[in-house]
């Protein structure tokens, strides 16, 4: 089983985010970059499939701050090969990023034929498209998103994929392989890997660098960000301040007043 996982680094939204001086995008200078959460789940799902059925997992991503750490962590968790695509224009949006990933997947030896191509179902900043359906379009493969369970049977060239619907309902699909899947959540929470193991991998394994292919098509995104801003909100919570005991008593009073206590 040959599994490719497309990963992306995104700003950590737990941190305070600021708009860049040109007011068009985030100020990326001070943000901490982390692996997009659903990409982390895509990696986990790939590793679970490999453990169950054997195979090879290759992770690939466009270069970004902190990416090496994420790729070494992926190798330490059990990925077999990690590729960093360098030289792409800084801050490309999703549509161009997906185009570059698709070119690399098509051109680099050993990546195709792949049986499964996985990515997170959606990242915080997929403003001009989602990675998985964009990859599926460029590679001419089927696509299914919001997947939470994936079982592949190569003997019949098919996978059984479970997709989430609203209200806790799920749907079981049969998908002809190869195919691209947007993973919402792996069957198990992404595994933890000790720092010592990542350090050992840094010494024993290498991240392959691949230059980004020249873009044949410019202006792929076709959308322009006119302005980025913090949400203008119509309302805001009344804030209760003080030590835990004091705010708790205050809150009890509010609940009692409304007959909720």
């Amino acid at each position: 089983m040959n599994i490719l996982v497309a990963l992306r680094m995104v700003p950590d939204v737990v941190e305070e985010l600021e708009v860049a001086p040109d007011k068009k995008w985030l100020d990326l200078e001070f943000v901490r970059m982390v692996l997009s959460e659903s990409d982390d789940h895509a990696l986990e799902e790939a590793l679970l499939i490999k453990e169950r059925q054997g195979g090879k997992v290759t992770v690939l991503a466009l270069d970004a701050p902190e990416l090496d750490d994420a790729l070494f962590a992926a190798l330490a968790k059990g990925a077999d090969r990690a590729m960093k695509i360098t030289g792409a224009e800084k801050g490309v949006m999703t549509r161009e990023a997906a185009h570059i990933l698709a070119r690399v997947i098509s051109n680099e030896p050993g990546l195709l034929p792949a049986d499964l191509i996985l990515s997170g179902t959606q990242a915080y900043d997929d403003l001009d498209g989602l990675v998985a359906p964009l990859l599926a379009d460029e590679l001419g493969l089927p696509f299914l998103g919001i997947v939470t369970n994936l079982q592949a049977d190569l003997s019949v060239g098919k996978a059984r994929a479970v997709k989430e619907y609203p209200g806790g309902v799920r749907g079981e699909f049969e998908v002809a392989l190869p195919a691209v899947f947007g993973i919402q959540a792996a069957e198990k929470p992404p595994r933890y890997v000790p720092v010592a193991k990542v350090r050992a991998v840094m010494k024993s394994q290498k991240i392959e660098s691949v230059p980004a292919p020249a873009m044949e098509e410019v202006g792929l995104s076709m959308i322009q960000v006119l302005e980025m801003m913090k949400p203008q909100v119509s309302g805001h919570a009344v804030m209760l301040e003080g030590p835990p005991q004091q705010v708790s008593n205050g809150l009890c009073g509010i609940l009692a007043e409304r007959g909720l206590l």
Partner: protein
Amino acid sequence: MAAEFWVVVEHWRNQVSEITYEALALGREVADQLGVPLRAVLLGHNVKEMAQSLGKADSLIYVDHPLLSEVVPETDAEALVQLVKERKPRGVIVPLTNVSLGVGTLLAARLRLPVANFCKDLKVVDGKVHAKSVLYGGKMESMVTADAEPAIFGLWPGARKAESGRIDQSPPVEEVAVSLREPPIRLQRYIEPEAGDVDISQQEVLVAVGRGIQGRENLELAETLAKDLGGAVCGSRPVIDQGWMPLSRQVGKSGLTVKPKLYLAMGISGAPEHTEGMKDSALIVAVNTDPHAPIFNIAHYGIVADVLEVLPALNEAIASKKGVDRHAA
């Protein structure tokens, strides 16, 4: 052919989705501002009667095909590709929900058209549609415009009130045929949520926990609070994904929509995927360490603090107010 503005009708399991009416309400405004008719596009199989509640549109294209009985992104996108190519609308709203996710991106990719995702508002400025998109878990918004038409707008839930987009009369219906191939993806069956657990959508009080609860061992604090308030515990996506609570307790996009009298959001940041499931609760109280967490924009009362400090204090305060001596019990 006169240009039009389009809304793709989402329906699932024989019901028109709420987001369709939200999209029609918004689409009506955009079409009026552009001075063009609003057209609804209904793809499905034996669902013509759904047109009965879509009177907000000036007219409706209905495509009936057995392969459209369930949403398969590439099949729905293929049908839309043929319609958009032929009719060239000014813009198309496609819902961005668990049912329709992927359709808008595939449509845009196939026709090399622009797509703007996560839209929560659209307006026309100097004859062009501007979209307001929600990014970074609700922490940022951006105004975007497209360089080409038609642009595809991936709409998030909550842009307009559903009731303002529902008119119970059928617009004129035009039936259109498309040619579709058997897709490499087929729905085999639905898996219903496990029964037997508490139905959180029926609770008057919900104590909802998010990432801030940090570990399964701390859930007890939330359970005590829920019990004392006569309610139940529920959670946001990360808590469910960790396996700390069953899927039946999830609030938001993939989970349930709840409207309790009291919703206590404990350590939940308030990403749009979560808030779409609880924003209509009568009273929302949020506790989060991040003073900029979007949950405070919809909460009525907020506390900037660690839930692991507030929960024990709150449990203690409620116990003393109710005269319960927990240590004696």
